[in-house]
């Protein structure tokens, strides 16, 4: 595409800065001087994809090698897509503007199930056949990683290779193998067989699936020498791990437009609904010095004036206070602000609150997740009402007037009593505020309650549980609404239909590939965008393929049932999940990893919290 044509195209769409490239720290290389061209695709728009830390890490890491040129590709918004289709312009990468189909490897990061149709749409826009079997040439290879890959079966027929777990090592091992094959001229089939020998690489076409009469999975069998189970990869020592010195700094405003500094991976908590809490085990921390050095370097190279500390539970970082002290030594002078997302209520000390008060006064956000102690025990969210109220009290006394609370609706064993508990807790916080003599004078309190729909996910103790039906979700949402009687509390909840489809795709098997393709052919894309999500089209797609979505979303699985992801080894054992499920049903909590090891299986790596002195 020549410059003139490109300009014309961009001047006809909203936010052309999404597609123009040329940002600070974006990488331009001589394409004739590299061996491997990698198109890193994020199946959503620029503003979302550019906020994603994993992509920043791998983009920089790949480009730190002279023989690889990694470029970024995002899903064009519907306005640009229409023009591209009309004018026959294929999907292009931001850096070179070259067509994606000319790349050696097309890699997708799959962060949420609702982006699957975008992946197919991007392949189609690129002019690449969506099905793996229809891509007989060696290139382009289509690979994917990210949390959704822990059950990639609903998209297994579109992707040649999945990366399980953390990508920093395994991705490069695969690229090296690719280089070797490209030079020697091997076939795709040979390459895939060879790739399957790398730990953490899952080649779905090498696995045969069989089903029982009742529709459940009978077996998944490895073929052609592929391993019976594929074990996820982790990075053992985060202090020695590559971390970018630069981030690409967008011109346009993106969702998270700041330095994102990772402080640890994994989570010690074991909340039973939370997939991230299990698939990223074991917890491994970066040292204070590493975090401080990396954050400072990123600020200098980007010009950002905000750092966000990133992890699944910031206050579980063992040396959070020394870290904040160290960061504050230079951030105050440089006018860099710190934000600490993902704080927990139970270890949110007065000192910590005092520190972040200096940093920035915004709202406080907590995630009790459930309205009653019984249900919080079921989900192993080990926070108590007293802790929540105590923290709010400290916060109000410190001048805060807004609290945001996150809950989930439809958790296993949930009753109307539990829903009422959500409204009651909100009311108690409002009452607490007005009973407090030292509350900010003349200001009203605002409690925002945000309720998402629980979706049972693979690799959690609730992977066996049915999701409640869309009608039941709506009934419970209405009931909750009726329980809130004050305007000081505002309630928002997620669309019930989106949660249903997410539930189907999350625990789906390979037969859903046809449905995903059919839905995309009917025009489904940007399913995570309320204005584009079209449940009717999806239901038609299920019907066309003669597949009942309720079989996947609303059915209870026996502990003995073969699950579509059983051949993928995220090191936390199925037996552990069964035990946790039983404990959940009797509302028994489990200790966190630092209190006591529950022998989940993640200790097999010989690293991390499993080997800390208790």
């Amino acid at each position, binding site marked *: 595409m020549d410059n003139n044509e490109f*300009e014309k195209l961009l001047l006809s769409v909203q936010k*052309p*800065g999404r597609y*123009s490239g040329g940002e600070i720290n974006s990488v331009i290389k001589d394409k004739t001087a590299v061996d491997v061209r990698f198109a890193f695709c994020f199946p959503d728009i620029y503003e979302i994809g550019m906020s994603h830390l994993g992509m920043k890490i791998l983009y920089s890491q790949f480009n730190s090698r002279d023989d690889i040129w990694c470029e970024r590709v995002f899903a064009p918004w519907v306005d640009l897509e229409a023009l591209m289709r009309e004018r026959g312009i294929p999907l292009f990468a931001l850096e070179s503007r070259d067509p994606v189909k000319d790349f050696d490897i097309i890699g997708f990061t799959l962060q949420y199930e609702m982006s699957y149709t975008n992946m197919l749409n991007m392949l189609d826009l690129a002019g690449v056949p969506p099905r793996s079997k229809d891509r007989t040439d060696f290139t382009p290879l289509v690979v994917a990683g990210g949390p959704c890959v822990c059950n990639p079966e609903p998209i297994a027929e579109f992707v040649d290779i999945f990366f399980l777990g953390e990508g920093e090592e395994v991705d490069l091992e695969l690229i090296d193998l690719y280089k070797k094959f490209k030079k020697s001229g091997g076939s795709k089939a040979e390459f895939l067989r060879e790739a399957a020998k790398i730990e953490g690489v899952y080649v779905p076409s090498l696995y045969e699936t069989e089903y029982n009469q009742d529709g459940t999975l009978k077996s998944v069998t490895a073929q052609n020498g592929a391993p019976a189970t594929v074990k996820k990869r982790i990075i053992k020592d985060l202090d020695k791990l590559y971390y970018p010195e630069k981030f690409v700094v967008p*011109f346009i*405003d993106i969702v998270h437009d700041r330095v994102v500094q990772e402080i640890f991976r994994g989570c010690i908590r074991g909340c039973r609904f939370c997939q991230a809490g299990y698939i990223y085990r074991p917890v491994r921390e970066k040292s204070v010095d590493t975090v401080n050095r990396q954050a400072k370097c990123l600020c*200098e190279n980007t*010009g950002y*004036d905000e750092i966000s500390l990133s992890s699944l539970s910031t206050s579980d970082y063992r040396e959070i206070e020394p870290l904040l002290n160290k960061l504050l030594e230079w951030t105050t002078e440089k*006018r860099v602000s710190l934000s600490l997302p993902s704080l927990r209520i139970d270890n949110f000390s007065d000192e910590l609150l005092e520190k972040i008060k200096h940093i920035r006064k915004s709202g406080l956000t907590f995630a009790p997740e459930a309205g009653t102690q019984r249900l919080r025990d079921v989900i192993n969210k080990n926070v108590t009402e007293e802790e929540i109220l105590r923290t709010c009290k400290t916060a109000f006394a410190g001048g805060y007037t807004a609290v945001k609370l996150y809950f989930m609706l439809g958790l296993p064993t949930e009753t109307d009593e539990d829903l009422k508990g959500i409204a009651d807790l909100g009311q108690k916080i409002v009452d607490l505020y007005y009973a407090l003599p030292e509350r900010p004078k003349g200001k009203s309190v605002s409690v925002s309650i945000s309720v998402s729909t629980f979706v049972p996910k693979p690799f959690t103790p609730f992977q066996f549980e049915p999701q409640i039906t869309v009608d039941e979700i709506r009934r419970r949402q209405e009931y909750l609404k009726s329980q809130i009687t004050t305007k000081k509390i505002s309630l928002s909840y997620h669309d019930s239909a989106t949660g249903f489809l997410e539930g189907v795709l999350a625990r789906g098997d390979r037969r859903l590939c046809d449905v995903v393709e059919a839905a995309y052919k009917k025009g489904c894309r940007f399913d995570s965008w309320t204005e584009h999500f079209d449940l009717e089209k999806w239901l038609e797609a299920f019907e066309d393929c003669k597949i009942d979505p309720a079989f996947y979303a609303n059915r209870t699985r026996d502990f003995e049932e073969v699950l579509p992801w059983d051949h993928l080894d995220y090191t936390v054992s199925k037996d552990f999940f069964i035990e946790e499920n039983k404990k959940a049903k009797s509302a028994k909590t489990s200790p966190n990893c630092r209190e006591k090891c529950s022998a989940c299986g993640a200790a097999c790596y010989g690293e991390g919290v499993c080997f800390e002195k208790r």
Partner: protein
Amino acid sequence: MKFVSHLDMNRFMSRLVSRAGIPVWYTEGFNRHFYMNFAVPLSLGFEGLYEVMDFKLTDDDYSLSECLERMNKVCPPDIEFFKIGEPKESMKEIAFAEYRLRFEALSDEFAERLTGFLSQKSVICEKTGKKGRVKEIDIIPKIKSFSFDGNELTLILNAGNEDTLNPNLVLTAFYAQTAAPPVFCTVTRTMLFNKKLKPFE
């Protein structure tokens, strides 16, 4: 860079001076930020060859040439800072801007129609203000001069805080009045002038 809006450009500059590590002055309020001003905002999609911005340094003795060098060093290739200095005139002195409109193809007929349009005594058209209020304005008195050269039309239009005319509005009014088939054109702002039509410094 032409696809960067004015608001995004402000943020871009703030990060740029931070990367450059020059001692710039920040506002003193609750939300302290880098204080900087563009003389005349440039519309999204336009290129600019002579753009003026102003900011303060906290250190009076800081070398301006070093400042220029450092800023250029951390800048993407699409932008160059070519001059830095104490302001000679107030921003308020800016009165005109020169725009070069390069048409993809400019037929004699099209140029004639455009000339005829621009030579009228008065053209009233609607302009949407910042707050979405629509008002009627006469664009002709705001057009200082126009000339053709090959595929290019050069316009000198009123510019500055008080009274600004965007060349896009001229084109919109032209197409609306004449129903001529639109021809793609790129717009470059080539100069900012003071009241005496001398380059603003």
